[in-house]
């Protein structure tokens, strides 16, 4: 019987062409995923966004909450090519006494050079390594208070680029973590409901119906309003995550239950039962691995909703509260018609949000098609 | 390849009688999928004589269903015709039209579909609309193609339901498809297909999903209706028993080609192609081969993406001639001494 190993060895050696039969199913899914170009692009965009988010503090030239009354509503700074490479013109703030608005004139006689890897405020890279180096900044003589506002500045003269970077850290992770949490709850509850059936199933399903019968927005608002106001930002962040998860799991639990019901009645499950397998064996070996791809798809398609939800809550003033910053908080600044007309750069966070949500949707679609080409 | 094609066409031309409802000539159909090209039909030739039942037999993947769909122009959109024509002749006195030249969704094709050629499928539920009563669906076809009068169409619908052996046609006409049993649904499907007295009925495995007692009654019914109305039938099935009971002539298909064509009696009592012979030997027969070991055809049908050199059956054929069958594609030729029996095999050249 020692020949088995030899036979296997031999067959491996002689195999020249690729044997599709020995490719596990998930690899076939990856292949199918690669065929949908748009989804691959979306995945690329998201990877870039998350990389930028992780490097946020390094990329942001200024702290997100530094007030600067001399820079109120500064438009995006124009980069010019000067004698020392890239640089910016000097800016002068003046008051339009008729409209009572600040406006800015450029002083083209001076060019302050843009410097890379400059020291700035203290932060921790990846929340661990203490650093003060930033990607860029401008070199000004000591007496000139001149900043570079890539995406302009807001009413308080805070750098919008730095604020979007910081806000991404909240908005992009909160949705992700919230969905991760609800996927976990939903999978466990859904599997239990689908596999054990009977009274367990009945109770869980009625509970889900009850939760889902509440109108969404008032429920979120009530829950968010119940959160303590004077807790650290991080704690509030997690509390909001939990709110998103607590309600988000119901839909997922139903999806998983449906899938588990189908897999539990499949004949391979029956064969395992007939061989005397335990419930645990069947759940971990047959049900979860088969349901996993669907769980991932549903989770992926839930992320944009969760991101949107956080934004909506923050926009309404119930989520992340200033001075902490998220994309929702930034959107609040852009909600007046005046902002749209006079300070259109305040809408840049909206663009970021749209790109992120769109990419997640495209990615989710691609993954779904790859997992279940006939679904 | 071109040489063999001409040869095949000459045999096909010699076979056809003047009055064929359908004449399929050198039909080639490829499917272009993500995983590769599927050669579904590789030069199919046959004809359906008027008023006869032609059986199309073969295993899954042999192209028998695709042939039926091609006549209806219902081929899935990934399919492309590389060559061939399907000539349809409504009356003996009418000029034949090439169905493949018609616009898939144009008025000419729509008139042919349903009015001149109808099709019934294995699963009647997929072709009956669950939102309308059976009667309404039959009436719709009649109103579309035959008459404008509503009371007249209702009368005809009930007539046809009666004809297909429904015990209580008025009640059935007012039922929804889900209220009927499988056999009843298939009867309703047949009623719908026959409501416009089509020239040709394409039946794609119409009894495969049914129980044996129901199947027998549906076959009986189709036989009776065929005698009465005179519709030609193309009967697609994998069940040789059903073929023997139903058909006048048979076409055996393998991997998108017709490998043998014969009158029903010749096929069962004097089969020529090794594939046909092996198929007949591999089915258990009541009261015949109980204590005998069944003949089995070794291996399985090659996967649809691959291309086989020579005769497509040579890898599974016990009589394959080395050096010939695996390199040269055999032509379709007449069996010696017959005007109706053709075979595509090197053993008879």
């Amino acid at each position, binding site marked *: *019987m020692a020949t*088995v*190993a030899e036979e*296997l060895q031999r*067959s491996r050696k002689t195999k020249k062409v690729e*044997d599709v039969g*020995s*490719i596990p199913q998930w690899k076939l899914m990856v292949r199918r995923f690669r065929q949908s170009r748009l989804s691959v692009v979306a995945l690329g965009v998201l990877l870039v966004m998350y990389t930028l988010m992780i490097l946020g503090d390094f990329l942001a030239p200024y702290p997100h909450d530094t007030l600067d009354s001399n820079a109120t509503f500064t438009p995006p700074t124009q980069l010019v090519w000067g004698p020392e490479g890239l640089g910016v013109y000097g800016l002068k703030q003046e008051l339009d006494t008729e409209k009572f608005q600040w406006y800015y004139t450029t002083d083209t006689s001076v060019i302050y050079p843009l410097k890379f890897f400059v020291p700035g405020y203290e932060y921790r890279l990846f929340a661990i390594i203490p650093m003060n180096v930033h990607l860029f900044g401008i070199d000004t003589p000591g007496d000139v208070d001149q900043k570079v506002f890539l995406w302009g500045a807001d009413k308080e003269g805070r750098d919008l680029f730095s604020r979007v970077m910081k806000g991404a850290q909240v908005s992009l992770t909160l949705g992700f973590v919230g969905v991760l949490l609800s996927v976990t709850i939903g999978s466990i509850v859904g599997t239990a409901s689908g596999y054990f059936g009977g009274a367990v199933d009945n109770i869980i399903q009625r509970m889900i119906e009850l939760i889902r019968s509440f109108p969404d927005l008032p429920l979120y608002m009530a829950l968010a309003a119940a959160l303590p106001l004077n807790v650290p930002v991080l704690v509030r962040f997690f509390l909001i995550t939990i709110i998103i998860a607590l309600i988000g799991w119901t839909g997922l639990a139903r999806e998983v239950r449906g899938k588990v019901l189908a897999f539990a009645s*499949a*004949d*391979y499950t*029956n*064969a*395992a*039962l*007939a*061989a*005397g397998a335990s419930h645990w*064996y069947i759940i971990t*070996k047959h049900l979860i691995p*088969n349901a996993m791809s669907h769980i991932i798809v549903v989770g992926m398609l839930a992320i944009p909703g969760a991101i949107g939800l956080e934004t909506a809550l923050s926009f309404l003033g119930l989520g992340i509260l200033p001075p902490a910053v998220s994309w929702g908080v930034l959107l609040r600044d852009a909600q007046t018609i005046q902002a749209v007309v006079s300070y259109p750069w305040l809408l840049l966070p909206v663009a970021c949000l749209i790109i992120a949500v769109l990419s997640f949707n495209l990615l989710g679609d691609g993954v779904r098609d790859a997992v279940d080409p006939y679904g | 390849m071109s040489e063999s094609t001409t040869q095949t066409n000459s045999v096909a031309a010699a076979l056809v009688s003047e009055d064929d409802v359908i004449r399929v000539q050198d039909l080639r159909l490829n499917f272009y999928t993500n995983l590769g090209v599927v050669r579904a039909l590789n030069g199919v030739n046959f004809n359906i004589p008027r008023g006869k039942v032609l059986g199309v037999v073969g*295993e899954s993947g042999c192209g028998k269903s695709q042939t039926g769909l091609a006549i209806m122009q219902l081929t899935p959109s990934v399919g492309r015709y590389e060559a061939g024509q399907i000539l349809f002749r409504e009356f003996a006195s009418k000029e034949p039209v090439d169905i493949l030249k018609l616009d898939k969704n144009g008025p000419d094709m729509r008139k042919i579909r349903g009015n001149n050629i109808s099709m019934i499928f294995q699963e009647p539920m997929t072709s009956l609309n669950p939102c309308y009563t059976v009667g309404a669906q039959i009436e719709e076809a009649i109103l579309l193609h035959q008459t404008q009068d509503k009371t007249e169409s209702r009368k005809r619908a009930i007539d046809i339901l009666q004809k297909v052996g429904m*015990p209580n046609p008025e009640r059935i006409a007012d039922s929804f498809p889900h209220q009927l049993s499988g*056999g009843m649904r298939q009867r309703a499907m047949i009623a719908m297909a026959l409501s416009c007295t089509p020239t040709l009925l394409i039946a794609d495995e119409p009894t495969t999903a049914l*129980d*044996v*007692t*129901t199947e*027998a009654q549906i*076959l*009986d019914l189709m036989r009776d209706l065929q005698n009465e109305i005179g519709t030609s039938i193309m009967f697609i099935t994998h069940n*040789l*028993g059903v*073929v*023997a*009971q139903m*058909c006048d002539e048979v076409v055996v298909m393998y991997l998108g080609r017709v490998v043998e064509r014969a009158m029903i009696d010749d096929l069962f*009592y*004097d089969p020529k192609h*090794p594939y046909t*012979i*092996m*198929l*007949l*030997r*591999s089915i*258990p*027969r*009541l*009261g*015949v*081969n109980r204590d005998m*070991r069944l003949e089995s055809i070794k*291996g*399985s*049908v090659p996967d649809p993406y691959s291309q086989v050199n020579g005769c497509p059956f040579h890898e599974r054929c*016990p*009589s*394959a001639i080395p050096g010939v069958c695996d390199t040269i594609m055999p032509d379709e030729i007449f069996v010696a001494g017959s005007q109706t029996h053709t075979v595509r095999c090197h*053993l008879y050249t």
Partner: protein
Amino acid sequence: MASDNTKMLLEVKGLKKHFPITGGFFKRVIGHVKAVDGINFYIKEGETLGLVGESGCGKSTTGRTIMRLLEPTDGEVIFNDPNLGKVNLASLERQQLNKVRPNMQIIFQDPFSSLNPRLTVGDTVGEPLSVQGVASGSALRDRVAELLREVGLRPENMTRYPHAFSGGQRQRIGIARALALNPKLIICDEPVSALDVSIQAQVLNLLEDLQQKFGLTYLFIAHDLSVVEHISDRVAVMYVGYIVEMATTDELYYNPKHPYTEALLAAIPRPDPRRRHRPVKLPGDVPSPANPPSGCYFHPRCRYAEDICKNERPPLRDIGDEHWVACHFAESLSLQGVPRVSDIPIIDVPKRRDTAEVEAPEI
């Protein structure tokens, strides 16, 4: 029940499986689908009992209830276990049941849903061995390789996934899995119904070979009467959850005693164009097992029915020579069976050249 020298392997007595029909918001039980309604039969060691019937007659439910994949509502399933002796499967505790399970296995109809797409063939075939803790590591691998060879597949297929195989090959994998624990009884639940004609013959031959080699006993569930005739020693016919006739294959096919069996046999389309026949007219449809008729379930469709049939359900009784019938008039009716035919030519495959072909190994 039966008095024979051969050892009884399985005796089913009064087995019932009712599925509750629930309705309303609180899912109250408002009725029962009597899928299996008090059936009796037995299987002797080494034989094949065919169980035939139309769809919905409860034949698959019977198989699954015997395997305890479904919990029986009532009745006994006495299995003669080689180690534990006679045990009633219907009432065994889970732990005890798992000790009996290696001796009875099941083969499924659908070659696609019966294999987990995420597991390699090796994992699937080896599953019973690892679940029962019989073998692991290289011993497991060797056993799996042996099993694959046994069913005509190459051992190197172990590392491949089900999607690489055709329907017939998948069915072989399912058979290898069922063989893994050296069972005594294998329940074959429509094992060839989903296969092409030529592949059907391969699988039937394989099942016959394995039966000879390992002394297996089969409960062969199918709706195709020709297949059942070919493989079975005895045949039982089910109608709406009830066995109406059970006899040796020859008796049942040539000398049926139940009107339903007669109608079934007459309906089989024979592959012989010179013998075209018309089916026995069976009025109406198969009744719903949720709401069966009174008395003999077959009486509304039976052309021999009399008053007693409407009121009294005939029990399954032995009318001699192990021919069991559930009909009041079994002795008096003269019914038509399958005609014995001998003049059908079995055509030889033409051989023009000496092609001393060596049977190529299965893929």
